[in-house]
């Protein structure tokens, strides 16, 4: 155990009578790391996050936050902001009242609360609603408000349980952008979500949970490459019509396993070579005279990995 990690979960077990909600889950989140918890409903994601934020006591195992055991609730969560199970803030309060309450608990003084409240309310597009009663807010507005309270103390660590649920598509994108912005501040993030694109967009590492057990854990890029045997699909788009000569040239490049023409301007290439070979391939496409417009990596998605992993488990 080192105190370098923001969060360390070691052999976490949580049982309710005969039912085991979480069985021997371990993972570490380094300072500045964004980790996603993935899994189907009832997999144990929320239970894990509740244990991390002290909302429930582990049956066994240890959880430390910045080196402090979660049993020391006050000190362990001193620099943690969290949104668990979509809490509903006091309806009689206004966002200003609520943020004052939260700020005082963290020990911020009035001036700091005022400044940070303005920051987070503006970020969450709630500034104009700061004196309106929360009970009149839509579900999405309440969700944005609880994210705002989590961000209020400028936390070192943020724990979010499905933070974009209830938000409209625009709201989801905005929240994701805010969370991406936390990377610049060396903030650590533990996020559970059903939205796989959210994890692949935000997180550097992922832990997949199923039936209370971690079935896969590690760096997203490494996991994806490992599960695809290092193979990716490159989608090459050009301005002019693709001819047989172009397909032959690309097919002859090192690392290329096969080509498939999609319409007259797009060529899909199965590629498993080195980064240098990939650079050579792109250079060839650029020099082909067809007018290279774009090269995208496709077929390397978290979704396919997730489906593959859950299928593997079912097969077992």
């Amino acid at each position, binding site marked *: 155990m080192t105190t370098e990690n923001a969060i360390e979960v070691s052999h976490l077990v949580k049982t309710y009578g005969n039912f085991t909600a979480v069985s021997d889950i371990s993972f570490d989140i380094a300072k500045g790391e964004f980790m996603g918890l993935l899994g189907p409903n009832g997999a144990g994601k929320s239970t894990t996050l*509740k244990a991390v*934020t*002290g*909302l*429930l*006591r582990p049956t066994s195992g240890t959880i430390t936050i910045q080196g402090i055991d979660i049993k020391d*609730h*006050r*000190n*362990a*969560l*001193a620099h*943690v902001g*969290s*949104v*668990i*199970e*979509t*809490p*509903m*803030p*006091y*309806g*009689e*309060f206004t966002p*200003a*009242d609520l943020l004052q*309450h*939260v700020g*005082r*608990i*963290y*020990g*911020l*003084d*009035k*001036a*700091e*609360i*005022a*400044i*940070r*409240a*303005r*920051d987070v309310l*503006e970020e969450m597009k709630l500034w104009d609603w*700061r*004196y309106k009663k929360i009970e009149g807010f839509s579900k999405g507005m309440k969700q944005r408000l*609880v994210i705002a*309270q989590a961000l209020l*103390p*400028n936390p*070192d660590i943020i*724990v979010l349980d499905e933070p974009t649920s209830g938000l409209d598509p625009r709201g989801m994108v905005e929240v994701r952008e805010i969370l991406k912005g936390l990377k610049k*501040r*060396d903030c650590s993030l533990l996020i559970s979500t059903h939205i796989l694109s959210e994890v692949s967009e935000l997180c550097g590492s992922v832990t997949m949970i199923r039936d209370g057990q971690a079935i896969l854990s590690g760096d997203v890029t490494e996991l994806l490459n490992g599960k695809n045997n290092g193979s990716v699909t490159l989608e090459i788009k050009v301005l002019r019509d693709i001819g047989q000569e172009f397909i032959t040239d690309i097919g002859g490049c090192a690392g290329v396993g096969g080509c498939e023409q999609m319409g007259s301007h797009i060529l899909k290439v199965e590629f498993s070579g080195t980064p240098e070979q990939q650079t050579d391939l792109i250079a060839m496409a650029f020099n082909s005279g067809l007018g290279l417009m774009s090269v995208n990596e496709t077929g390397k998605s978290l979704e396919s990995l997730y489906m593959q992993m859950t299928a593997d488990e079912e097969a077992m």
Partner: protein
Amino acid sequence: MFGKKKDEVLEEGTQPVTEPSPDDEYDRPRGTWADSGYDLSDEEAHRNVKYKIPNVFSQTITMFRTQMSLYSKRKFIYVILVMAILIPVIYYMTKDFMSLGSAVTTPNGTGLMGLLICLYPFMIAIVTGFLCGSSVPSEFNDRSAYMNMALPMSRTSFMLGKYLAGLVITVGIFVFAYGMSMAAALMKYQYFEEQALMNSFVLLVMSVLVYTSFSFFLGSVLKRGANILSFLLMMVVMPAVEIYLLLNENIDGTTYALFPNLMSDNMVMALGSNLMASPGGTINLITSGAITTLTADADLAAMCGVSVVWSVAFLILSIVAINRREM
């Protein structure tokens, strides 16, 4: 700058020069740090100031203030206060028609006071049940507990803050109503028996303390229904058992007077009235005053001692329950 302690940042700049004005707390233009009380030119420096988690006492006070603020937004409390104000008004309008009869045993303002507060036992059970019994369950049902308990605050602070606010608000309501009853009694009589009035007032506070603690305890162990159950247990089930024991001579009058749930009955009877909207009053009506000597048989100190022990015990049980509660 991120990661620096507040004091370190302050040392780099200068000490706070002005206190922020509460009026423009949220309307301050972004980035005007001079108004924030800090003489810092670097906006980001201030934004990244670190903080220190307050001690348990400070967090308890914060929770108390928050809960008081929530109570202040409840219409129910204002309805109760208006009802209290109506006590002298109604009495003034009806005093020419009111006959005190045998319900009042003292021929002065004290006896009339006893009559005017005859509904208090019932009201104390109702008001504490609804204000205090629902305080903790509503946190869980409305899911605000998921926010509060994931904050760096001990659950003891959370519970104590809510409890103190509940106690202050219910004591405040009934002391106000008690004052209104005194005002009404002074319309007819010029004086009170001071000792009886003092005993009654102390028992008022004790009965609110007893009911508040019990309501909070039920609220901390039950997900719903604590308010109704508190009322039923304290006003129906427990008195029924106690009265049964008294009438069958299993207990004497002194012991009977020490049951904490009957402090509100004692409060009324201390003033010389045996008319009460409570089980004690009901049994008095049935038995022609079988328990009228209630307060004479036990001294006030013993009653207060029992009430305080009961209240502290249930407060501790509430704190234990909330600390063990899983979400």
